[in-house]
């Protein structure tokens, strides 16, 4: 219960506390949540399901209020509660127009995200899913670029339409189920055709959020216009809701449609991998480069998830973590460059490495992690995902693997053009302590899970097996 209460309470406190204290209260709240989560994780037995809230109460329309987590859910909660403090930490030395609103919104976001990852009831999942939209919208609106309203409206309408499709699917499925709890929804047997519709609804919502090609057009504009923290939240956590949603909800609820949809989604993911990477090669806006890079990376994860076998799913979780860390790191670097240069155009930068060696070092570490070199968590994740796709179809695997090459092209171009070359004359302050610490924490986790990814796999593996068992038991199909 404290997983929800701490961020919520701190969000309220932050909204009314004195201005000069707000930042630290916000950070304290996030760290407190993290500690609570770690305690939960230590007590957690892999493979079990812990119900946080189960009132044995079913409302007239089948809402069960079931909240709880298994290994996968807890992993995502951990991820959320690790990333949020890092985001707040890296923002400590930045000024925002309204500290209270900002910290309250980030914590509210954290609350909503924890809700999404622990909801075991379809309706609750939907409610939390929609709730996340409020803080991110306000953060982007209040603190983003001044001309960002239009792109924000587009983002809002876009994701809202997707969510509606998901709601329709949920309702359609709910009419056939005893109630809206996860297990009841999974137990429903569907004809292949109706399963396609139901999965299609979920898919639209998730494809927009992830985002997959061709539903991604809101993303580059929103990422570039949002303030640094907003972009970090969007790329580091919000899109993970959708990938997690695919694993927890979309596929288990309508597994009958997996065969039909598999090819479609993998193809879209594949197009995204190559398409976004090729576009990223020629962009000059650093945030936009990383935005397209993100599309490319998540396309691979989404395609891997659709394989829905143990290897690919385990890899997907490793890669979820990796992408969160890398995306937050990259956008932190981009934010620092934008902040100090007052521009996002890399052709106007250059020569930073000479004057800010500390920043150059940490940015390089993140850049290397982004191209998935050994000793970083992306290495194993990418290796396994590509292997899965290769086994699915060697052409698919080969096309996906071009990310190895293109990733190096755009990442190093972005890094070298902005950082290398003769020393810049523009005044450039090297990292402050909080930024260094944020980079260090990110890099540390990247390396730890790069050398020992088995920790993640052990954590989520049994729950994955349970989920697959559940699907098999209720649908008599063998995946």
């Amino acid at each position, binding site marked *: 219960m404290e997983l929800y209460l701490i961020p919520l309470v701190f969000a309220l406190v932050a909204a009314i506390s004195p201005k000069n204290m707000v930042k630290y209260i916000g950070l304290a709240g996030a760290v407190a949540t993290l500690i609570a989560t770690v305690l939960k994780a230590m007590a957690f037995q892999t493979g079990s399901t812990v119900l946080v809230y189960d009132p044995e109460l079913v409302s007239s329309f089948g809402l069960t209020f079931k909240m709880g987590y298994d290994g996968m859910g807890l992993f995502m909660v951990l991820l959320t509660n690790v990333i949020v403090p890092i985001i707040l930490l890296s923002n400590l030395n930045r000024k925002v127009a309204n500290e209270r609103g900002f910290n309250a919104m980030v914590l509210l976001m954290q609350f909503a995200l924890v809700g999404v990852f622990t909801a075991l009831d379809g309706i609750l999942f939907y409610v939390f899913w929609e709730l996340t939209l409020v803080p991110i919208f306000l953060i982007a609106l209040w603190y983003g670029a001044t001309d960002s309203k239009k792109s924000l*409206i*587009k983002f809002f*309408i*876009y994701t809202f339409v997707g969510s509606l499709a998901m709601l329709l699917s949920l309702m359609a499925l709910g009419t056939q189920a005893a109630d809206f709890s996860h297990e009841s929804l999974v137990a429903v047997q569907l004809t292949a055709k109706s399963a396609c519709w139901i999965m299609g609804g979920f898919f639209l919502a998730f494809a927009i959020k992830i985002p997959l090609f*061709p539903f991604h*057009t*809101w993303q580059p504009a929103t990422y570039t216009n949002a303030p640094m923290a907003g972009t970090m939240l969007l790329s580091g956590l919000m899109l993970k809701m959708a990938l997690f949603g695919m694993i927890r909800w979309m596929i288990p609820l309508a597994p009958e449609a997996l065969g039909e949809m598999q090819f479609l989604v993998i193809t879209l993911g594949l197009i995204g991998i190559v*398409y976004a990477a*090729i*576009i*990223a*090669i*020629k*962009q000059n806006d650093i945030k936009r480069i990383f935005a397209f890079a993100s599309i490319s990376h998540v396309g691979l994860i989404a395609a891997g998830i659709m394989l829905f076998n*143990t*290897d690919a799913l*385990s890899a997907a979780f490793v890669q979820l973590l990796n992408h969160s860390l890398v995306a937050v790191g990259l956008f932190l670097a981009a934010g620092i460059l934008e902040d100090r240069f007052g521009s996002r155009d890399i052709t106007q930068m*250059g*020569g930073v*490495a*000479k004057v800010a060696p500390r920043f150059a070092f940490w940015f390089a570490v993140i850049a*290397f992690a982004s191209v998935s*070199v*050994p*000793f970083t968590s992306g*290495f*194993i994740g990418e*290796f*396994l995902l*590509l*292997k899965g796709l*290769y*086994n699915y179809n*060697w052409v698919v*695997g*080969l096309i996906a*693997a*071009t990310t*190895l*090459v293109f990733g*190096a*092209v755009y990442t*190093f*171009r972005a890094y*070298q053009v902005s*950082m*290398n*070359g*003769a*020393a810049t004359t523009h005044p450039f302050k090297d990292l402050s302590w909080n930024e260094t610490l944020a980079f260090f924490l990110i890099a540390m986790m990247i390396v730890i899970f790069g*050398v*020992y*990814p*088995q920790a993640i*796999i052990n954590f989520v593996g049994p729950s994955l097996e349970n989920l697959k068992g559940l699907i098999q038991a209720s649908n008599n199909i063998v995946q």
Partner: protein
Amino acid sequence: MAIDKLILLIMALPLLGAFVNGTAGKYLPKKIVGTLATLVMFAAFGLALMVFNRLHDTQIIHLFQVLNLDSITLNARLQVDSLSIWMTLVVTGVGALIHLFSMGYMSHDKGYYKFFTYLNLFIFAMLILVLGSNYFMLFFGWEGVGICSYLLIGFHYSDLEKGMLNSIAARKAFIMNRIGDLGLLVALFLILNQFGTLEYNELADRILVDKLIPSDWMMLGITLMLFIGATGKSAQIPLFTWLPDAMAGPTPVSALIHAATMVTAGIFLVVRSNYLFELAPTTQDIMLYVGLATSLVAAFIAMRQNDIKKVLAYSTVSQLGLLFVALGMGAYTAAIFHVTTHAFFKALLFLGSGSVIHAMSDEQDIRKMGGLKKFIPITHLTFLIGTLAIAGFPLLSGFYSKDEILAHAVMHNGVIYAVLMFSVALTAIYMFRMYFLVFHGEFRGSAEAKHHLHESPLNMTLPLIVLAILSVFGGLLNLPGLFFEKGTHWLSHFLEHNTRGLELIHSVHLETSQAMLLMGSAVVMTICILIASFVVYVKRGSLAKADSELTGWELASNKKLYFDEVYNKLFVQPIEWIGKMSHQVIEVAVLNKSISVFTTAIGKTGDLVRKWQTGYVSNYLLWMVLGIVGLVVYYLLKF
């Protein structure tokens, strides 16, 4: 200490050096930084020698399990056998000498501690590559050395003029390597699917003992993909153009990474997988011809290069081509022999060129050198030995190792032998050209440069001397059976004794008369070229032409056969164009536009619906009545 502890220590030492220098190096005096980095290398080499002495059979050292899933188990595991310990000796031995050299060479550099951190890190990655017990570890190290190579090529990234160029060279190297890595990755997937394991030993058991041999096509696929990986790292056609550009890195880096060790990783990979390649004769042929073409093309380009390091770089590419010819003929031990001697004399030549560049105040153009032999005598002498060794001068190390490959070629196919001889001749020609232009004749640089000419300090000349001695006597490792009855082919026997697959390869040696003839012709050719070069460059005093005077084949050679330009037109520009167009057309014009239409439509609908909410009861009543009428009409019509 047992072998497993020793091996762990060997790996830990460079890592320790990198860690200490990486974290505290900034605050330590240069002396300590350099000494520490160099000491760990010498210590590692000493330990490797101990292991070498004690090693009797293959040892597996299990570290930990990286990954364990139903379908795949990846282990961090080391394997010590003849091949891996031999490579370890080469890497740590040559590496130690180059570290020592760097202490002097880099002494004025601000990034001193960084340089040694990267260098030690490179050694660590390289040791993972050669000591790993499975293809996964190999891939790990493979990518690891790629990163270090990237960091070191672009080491002077903030240089006033060349900073960005260095960065671009580094990026190019990394990307071209990545293209090769793609092949290696696919090979890994294929092996995993086919055999269910990536462990060398298990794989060898399946093939050599259980005879579980997949179809020819599968073997072709696996080996071809492995070879594509090798072409990236070992700079073969079509992926060789990064290596000459990699000369942007400091010279010790070129010596260590881009000549002696990293670029031989591809050869190591093929030797390690020899039993796979033996089952894929088509791949062997492809390897042979690609190697042959590379050897020839690179040697041709080297003829008219005027940057001292570029000549050596193309020479490295050419020698690597030669090595792949050997591998294509199944001459694995001969290849490792040449890898070893090449490591000696090419490291020597690169370090020598470093010493020259050091003396010349960072000038690399041989047209501005000349007559250096009296200014830098030790460098001159050692460079001469290196040149003679690579040119195949009798009784020096390159003579034996090259001759062994040539002997295999004779047995394989007369035409290949002839082409190979031509490539060897070109090597001698361009090497002597460079040697005479640099060290003989009159000094052609500025008076100020002449004033600064000086011999390098002892910590730079000492490695040169040691490498020169090795270049002279390296041939003793694998003497042909001509002169003695015993003690010949020592290295071949050593490798065959304890490397999976190699023991099965039947090595044939030429008859004595044939071998004598072969050696004789090689000797005559080398000496003829030496004399001719002497006449042309010393007696007649010919000089390298200015770029504008070049025509015909000289221009083609000087322009590197336009490989970069063609690649640019063929791959880089189209992809960039697609990227640009995708953004302008698909992204902005099609997708964004259609979404905008959609969102505007929603906005408009909102406006429209809002207007219905007029607030007048009469309006609402009207709508209600209309609704009722509608319903009544509907039901009337329905029944």
